C-alpha cells in the first residue's frame, strides 16, 4: 500500500529508525541463537522457550483485537481451543473424520492453515452478533463465548472425546528433522510463526486498515464519518485475531500431543490479556516484552522461587515450608503485580505513543489555557 506520508512535510526519524533496526536485528539473532546459548550455558530452558514463544504469538493476535481495534475480548482462549481441536480433527487417530482415522491424516502444515482459517471463521461468527456492542458489554459476550467453547468440547465426547482429551495428534513431517523427539525444531517452527506474526501485524498497523482500527478505537462515530466501514473493519479485526490464535492452537496441540478442554479455560484468556496490558497495548514490541517477562516469571522464575522456598524449608527443618506448593501463589502474585502496575503505569511498560497520548490527554489539557493564550497573542 502506498502511503501518502512521503510528502515534503514528512519528518524522517533517522536516528530512531536506525536504533529500531539494530534492536530488531539483535532480537532476531538472539531468538535464533537461543538453542545454542541454552545448550552452552546448560540452562535447560528449551522446553520452556516453546510455550513462552507460543503465548507471544497469542498475545500478538489478541493485540490486534484489543490493542489496535479496541475491542475488549475476554474469550480469546476459545479460538486457541478451536485451532487446537481443528488440528486434532485433521490429524489425530481419534479424529471424528473417518478418512483421518483410517490412516490418511492431513499434512501438518496444511492442517495448520486450515485450523487458522477455521478459527478466523469463528472470529467472524463471534464478531457478527456483537457489532453493536462496545466496552463492558462486548467483554461480557466474549467472556461467555470463551466459556461456551470448552463446555461444548467437554459435552460432545462422541466428537471431541470430552474430558478424556484427544491423543495422539499428528506431527509435522520434514525429512531429516525429528519433531517427535527433539524440541529444537519446534522452537524454530514457533519462532518462524512468531516472526511472521510480528511482520504481519506491524504492516497491518501502519496500513489503511490499521488506521481505520485506530480511528474506530478512539471514536466510532467520527471514524464512520471519515468513511470507515465499521462492520467490515470490526469483523476483520476479530477474524484476524482469531486466526493467529488458531495458528498457535494448532501448533500447541501437535506439540503437546494431547489436548483436553481444561487447557483452554478463562485463565488462558486472562494470561494473554495481562501480557499485552503489561507490555503496552497496541505496541508490538511492548507486547513481545510483556509476553517474555510474564512467560519468564511464570515458567522459569517460579521454579527458582519454589526451589528457594523449599531450600529454606529444608534448612530450617520446616516441613510445611519445604512442601509448599508455590504454584498456588502464582495467581496472587500476578494479581498483585497487575494492580500495582495499573496504579503506577496504566499504559503498560512500553506503551505506544498513541495510547499514552489518549490516556494522558486529560492531564495535558491543563496546559491548554497557556497554549490558547499563545495562539491569541500570535493573532494579535
Amino acid at each position, binding site marked *: 500500500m502506498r502511503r501518502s506520508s512521503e510528502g515534503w512535510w514528512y519528518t524522517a526519524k533517522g536516528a530512531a529508525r536506525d536504533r529500531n533496526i539494530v534492536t530488531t536485528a539483535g532480537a532476531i539473532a538472539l531468538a535464533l541463537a537461543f538453542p545454542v546459548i541454552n545448550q552452552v550455558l546448560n540452562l535447560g530452558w528449551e522446553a520452556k522457550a516453546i510455550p513462552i514463544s507460543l503465548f507471544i504469538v497469542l498475545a500478538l493476535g489478541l493485540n490486534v483485537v484489543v490493542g489496535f481495534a479496541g475491542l475488549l475480548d475476554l474469550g480469546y482462549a476459545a479460538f486457541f481451543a478451536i485451532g487446537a481441536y481443528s488440528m486434532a480433527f485433521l490429524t489425530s487417530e481419534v479424529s471424528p473424520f473417518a478418512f483421518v482415522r483410517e490412516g490418511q491424516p492431513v499434512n501438518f502444515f496444511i492442517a495448520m492453515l486450515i485450523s487458522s482459517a477455521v478459527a478466523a471463521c469463528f472470529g467472524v461468527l463471534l464478531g457478527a452478533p456483537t457489532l453493536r456492542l462496545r466496552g463492558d458489554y462486548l467483554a461480557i459476550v466474549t467472556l461467555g463465548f470463551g466459556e461456551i467453547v470448552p463446555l461444548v468440547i467437554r459435552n460432545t465426547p462422541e466428537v471431541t472425546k470430552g474430558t478424556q482429551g484427544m491423543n495422539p495428534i499428528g506431527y509435522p513431517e520434514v525429512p531429516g528433522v525429528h519433531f517427535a523427539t527433539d524440541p529444537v525444531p519446534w522452537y524454530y517452527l514457533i519462532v518462524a510463526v512468531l516472526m511472521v506474526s510480528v511482520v504481519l501485524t506491524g504492516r497491518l498497523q501502519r496500513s489503511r486498515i490499521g488506521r481505520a482500527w485506530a480511528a474506530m478505537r*478512539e471514536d466510532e462515530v467520527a471514524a464512520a464519518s471519515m*468513511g470507515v466501514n465499521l462492520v467490515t473493519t470490526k469483523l476483520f479485526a476479530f477474524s484476524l485475531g482469531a486466526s493467529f490464535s488458531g495458528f498457535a492452537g494448532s501448533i500447541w496441540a501437535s506439540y503437546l500431543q494431547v489436548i483436553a478442554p481444561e487447557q483452554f479455560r478463562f485463565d488462558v484468556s486472562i494470561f494473554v490479556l495481562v501480557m499485552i496490558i503489561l507490555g503496552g497495548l497496541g505496541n508490538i514490541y511492548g507486547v513481545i516484552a510483556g509476553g517474555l517477562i510474564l512467560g519468564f516469571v511464570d515458567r522459569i522464575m517460579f521454579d527458582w522461587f519454589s526451589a528457594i522456598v523449599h531450600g529454606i524449608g529444608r534448612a530450617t527443618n520446616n516441613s510445611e515450608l519445604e512442601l509448599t506448593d508455590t504454584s498456588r501463589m502464582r495467581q496472587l502474585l500476578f494479581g498483585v503485580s497487575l494492580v500495582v502496575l495499573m496504579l503506577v503505569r496504566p499504559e503498560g511498560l512500553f506503551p505506544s505513543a498513541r495510547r499514552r497520548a489518549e490516556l494522558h490527554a486529560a492531564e495535558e489539557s491543563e496546559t491548554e489555557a497557556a497554549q490558547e493564550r499563545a495562539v491569541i497573542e500570535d493573532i494579535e
Partner: protein
Amino acid sequence: MAMLQVENVHTFYGTIEALKGVSLTVEEGEIVTLIGSNGAGKTTTLRTIAGVSHARAGSVALDGEDITNTPANDIVRLGIAHSPEGRRIFAGMTVRENLEMGAFTRTDRTEVDSDYQRVFDLFPRLKERILQRAGTLSGGEQQMLAIGRALMARPKILLLDEPSMGLAPVLVELVFKIIQDINAQGTTVLLVEQNAHMALSIARRGYVIQTGRIVLSDSAQALAKNEMVRKAYLGEA
C-alpha cells in the same frame, strides 16, 4: 436544482421527535447557516444529513439524488463532509494522522497531497504542530484540525457543527474568517451555530430552527434585522 435538498425530515431519538419536519436547501457555492437555541435540532439536522442519525420520514437529496439514510461511511464518499459537534478529533493520533483519516476514502494521492498544502495554508498552526498528538492541542487548534480533517475529504459540501464552541472571541473571528476563505475556494458550507451574530455576518442565507421546526428562512442580512431573531438570538432588546 439545489445542491443539497432536505425535505420534511423527521428524526427521532427513541420516542422523542427531535426534528418535526425540517426542510432546507443549500445552493452550490453558498454559505447557509442554521441558527437556533440549545436543543432546537440544529445538530440533529446535520447528523441526519451526514447519515449518523436516521430520518424516520422525509428525504435528503444531494445533486438531485436521494441519499436519505445512507450510512455515514458512504455519505462522505458522495461528497458531504461532517465536522461534528464537540470536534471529535482523534486525540491519540498526530495532527498528520488526523488529516490522513480525513482523506481515508480517497485514492488520488497527488490530489490528496495538494489538499494537505491547502489545509496548511488555511491553518499554518497545524503545520507547526504536524507531529503533535491531537489531544495535546489547544481548543482552537483542535477546532482548526476538525475543519481541516473534514476538508481533506475534498467535499462538495462541508457541514460545520458549532465551530465557535468554547473558543475565545478572537479565535472565533479567526475561525469564521477561515470558513469564508474555504467558501471562497469553492466549497459549499452548511453552518450550524449558536453564535447567530457571527454566523449571519458570513452567511448568504439563514434558517432559524425552533423545537424541531424551521420557523424562519431568509437572507442573512434580513434575518439579522428581523425583530424576533434580534430578540431571541442576537441578545438585543
